[in-house]
């Protein structure tokens, strides 16, 4: 299993400037951290890897996966945790998890296990609107991991979280990557994530200096 970006270019509709321009990158099983300043294209790359966007030019080779973006790919091969609003409103924690398990075709017990690992069993029947930001993010991580996807994409999973919640999430991610051998790609500018990364992709080095923001004095 491997993901490879070949001359990957993406330009948002209506924009002349590409967010990603000719990116070449190989991503192997384990945790890959995409690091860079806001707006450098980390999240866009995650969406491209998940098949939620189509490259303007170049390609993504996903060896061992169904076609990225296809229903089969999104149901069981890939799980994405967005920066915010990851959960279905007006539904309980358990309903969010159960729905994810049913769509992926995995036993509901797997969902319960992940809730347990992320310390959420006590909130099983609580509506997600009543959870704190950290708890919501943990539910979203549990919802993603319970599918045991070979590709896990996390967009700023620890952004705005306290150290306790961050530690729980990072531990869970490490455990998931180690146990399943999946490809985990994390887009984050939070340095607390650095220690768990097996590979680091620094967008500061990838992007030409002209496209990088000027350093603060």
């Amino acid at each position, binding site marked *: 299993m491997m993901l490879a970006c070949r001359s990957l270019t993406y330009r*948002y*509709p209506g924009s002349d400037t590409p967010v990603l321009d000719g990116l070449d990158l190989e991503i192997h099983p384990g945790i890959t951290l995409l690091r860079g300043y806001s707006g450098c294209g980390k*999240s*866009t790359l995650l*969406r*491209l890897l*998940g098949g*939620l*966007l*189509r490259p303007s030019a170049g390609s993504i080779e996903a060896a061992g996966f169904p076609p990225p*973006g296809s*229903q*089969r*790919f*999104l*149901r*069981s091969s890939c799980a*994405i945790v*967005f920066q915010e*609003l*990851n959960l*279905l*409103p*007006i*539904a309980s924690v358990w*309903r969010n998890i*159960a*729905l*994810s398990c*049913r*769509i*992926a*075709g995995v036993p509901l017990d797997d969902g319960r296990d992940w809730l347990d690992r992320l310390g959420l069993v006590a909130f099983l029947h609580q509506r997600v609107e009543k959870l704190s930001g950290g708890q919501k993010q943990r539910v979203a991580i549990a919802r993603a991991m319970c599918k045991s996807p070979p590709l896990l994409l996390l967009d700023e999973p620890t952004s705005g979280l306290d150290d306790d919640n961050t530690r729980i999430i990072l531990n869970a991610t490490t455990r998931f990557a180690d146990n399943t051998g999946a490809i985990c790609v994390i887009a984050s500018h939070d340095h607390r994530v650095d220690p768990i990364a097996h590979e680091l992709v620094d967008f500061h080095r990838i992007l030409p200096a002209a496209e990088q923001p000027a350093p603060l004095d």
Partner: protein
Amino acid sequence: MNWWISIAFYLLQNSLRRWIEQPLALCAKLTIAALIGLLGAVMIGGAAYLGEELERQLASRDALTIHITENITQRHVNARLAEDDAEPAAWQALASEILLYDRPPRIARIDQSGEASLVALRDPEKLGYPDSIILLSHRKPPGAPVVVSVEDERFEAKVMRPRGEIEKAAMGNQEWVVTSTRRLAPLLQGGFSRHILLQARSVEDIERIHEITDALRLVEERNINVRSSLPLLLELRRIQSIQRYVLVAVTIGTALVLGLVCGALAWMEFREERYLLALIRSFGVGRLMLLWHAVAENCLVAVSGVVMGLAMLAVFAATADLSALQMDWLDGATIFLSRETAILVFGALCGGLLSCIPVWIGLRKPLGLVLK
């Protein structure tokens, strides 16, 4: 439980939440659909009443009765009297009732009561009359003997009432001295007029009868004339086709207005919900599933609105004094159970479907652009 049942339940719950949180959008959809349903039902009911009333009026005036008259000259008498039943049978095929009789250019006189038409029937017994000389009369007591004189000859006849409706229609207020063609043959030798009275089943049959008589006139040079209400019936058909146009226009109008109004509201709702729908799609749920939900929701609302409008009309029809309002035609049962109402509901369904077009367009947007 299948995943799609779970998703369907979730989407249903989400719709209910939206309706509770934003009742105005739902009320607007229902009210517009109800008003359109109401207006459509009144238009359809009015058009249907007009058509039915015209048909009723025409039926009461024997609009489907045709009178064919043929003058047979002396030269053709023997041939025409000797012909078999093929031609009457051909006419019979185009009518529910038929009366074929011959009339010589003579008048029968009845003692002390004036004149009567002299009529020869090919086979009186088939019509339930004896093969003798009878006087068909509405006025004289049945069974009474009368003396009939034709030219210088006098005959005894018995009074009978006309049996069939078609004989009554043909006689009008006259009296007929009826006998068989065989008996009356000597009086027919100088030429006679043949009358065929037909009760057609449809306007199409009347048109065919006209075509046949035209052909007989042209090809066989027969002196044949037809009297019917065909021009009036064709006008009625034109009115009925207008009725159909009204029906189609109301259906299309209903669908379009509902489609536009509900579509605009559905688009606004979709814009609010698009992140959630994109999130569900990012789990691997197909676009069709979400579209199916939008179709079901919009069709349900549109049809419910139209049915509410019809129910309001039915309640109005049941409680208001329709006679005083000169709206007798507004019969609640007719409005609810007619085929036209079903078409109106079908129009509402189409409107519901049309209103999903913006949603479909919205669902085609790449997920990554929504989930930013």
